[in-house]
């Protein structure tokens, strides 16, 4: 359970850092599952991964890959 929580937190941090999730205006970053799913779908679509909206192994592996430090511009609107 701890492992899962850590992976989820790391994924949220990644999605925030690279612009897939927007920091909330108020309060802590307790994202709703719909928000996370939406961000994960955008990331998966931009990474040409199966779009599930879930933090699956392929998505976690992609997030561990070395990359550029600049934000990504991908969201549902830009992908469309």
């Amino acid at each position, binding site marked *: 359970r701890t492992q899962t929580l850590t992976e989820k937190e790391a994924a949220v941090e990644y999605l925030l850092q690279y612009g897939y999730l927007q920091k909330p205006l108020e309060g802590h970053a307790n994202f709703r599952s719909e928000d996370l799913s939406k961000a994960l779908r955008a990331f998966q679509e931009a990474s040409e991964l199966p779009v599930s909206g879930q933090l699956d192994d392929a998505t976690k592996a992609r997030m561990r890959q070395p990359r550029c*430090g600049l934000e990504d511009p991908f969201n549902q609107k830009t992908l469309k």
Partner: protein
Amino acid sequence: YLLLGRWRRRHLTFRIFNLPSTLPPNTARAALLQAFQYWSNVVPLTFREVQAGSADIRLSFHGRQSPYCSKAFDGPGRVLAHADIPELGSVHFDEDELWTEGTYQGVNLRIIAAHELGHALGLGHSRYIQALMAPVYAGYRPHFKLHPDDVAGIQALYGKKSPEKEDEEEETELPTVPPVPTKPSPMPDPCSGELDAMMLGPRGKTYAFKGDYVWTVTDSGLSPLFRVSALWEGLPGNLDAAVYSPRTQWIHFFKGDRVWRYVNFRLSPGFPKKLNRVEPNLDAAFYWPLNQKVFLIKGTGYWQWDELAPTDFSRYPKPIKDLFSGVPDRPSAAMSWQNGRVFFFKDKKYWSLNRQLRVEKGYPRNIAHNWMHCRPRTLETTPTGGDTSPSATLNTDRSPIDTILNITSAAPN
């Protein structure tokens, strides 16, 4: 491809400040030079190396900490490099990576350098994962070449390489802006408390604006007052609002129905522009680092603006009170500050907001006493008009910019 900006000049200089320890210097230099060549092969840009002094594009390697870069790297793996968009020119590589050339091991310096130069020239990330400008490093490719999307993107910025284009005249450095009135308004008194705008600017300097003048606020006191146009050429006084974004390095000044954009003290091409998508005569503006957005405030409403993404302004303005608890309507200035708080200023008072954007206990407080280092005695003897000669006066012996830059920022008492 995504476009983030472009250089107005076609002949650019670059300087390599240091090299990675994992490659022989000649190999590393050759990799970096080849990275420039990928781009100059397809667009009418030239790159000339300089060994000293200033350069348009500056390449360097740093690690987890750097006195010159606010974005620390994270050790081997993950983030490999980052770069600024035009016309800033910084290109930084993580010195903790195993930089290599000609091998599948480690990280190929030539390919990553070409990617970062793409950013420095104005390209954002491509959504083609095979493109050079894809965000994730795809590994070493012995026969690397630019993806058609990379070529289309860079040519959208600079055009195709052809003999006719190479001799194209340089674009005008600065657009014509209306002349600034030669008669400035009376020099204001910082102790009068009322302000047009406040801004936490580049290098952590806190700027206060009033009438035709600007000064910086520091722990030890105030800088001399300077005319606004002496620092930001072409900028009028009596501003409505000012905001600096560390995300883009852009400073926006608002007055009436116009907006000016500067990078440091240099006007960006095409500015000033007309404000079309938000109302004119703004009251205040500030950048909020927690969500990396710029907030524009007028009357009882606010607009939230993402500088690098399309913003749907049809949902704005929204009521200030829905987001900021306990602040006054029609503030005269606002800024977020180094301590993570947002400050609102109105008349002679200021309000401090916590990270939940609620006014903290004990506010409002006095601007003159807590920000401007004014003693109560000074307040008693200062005429209420506020246009008398202040204790800090214009020092004509020094460059205003030098003076401003030599002063460290300050916390309110």
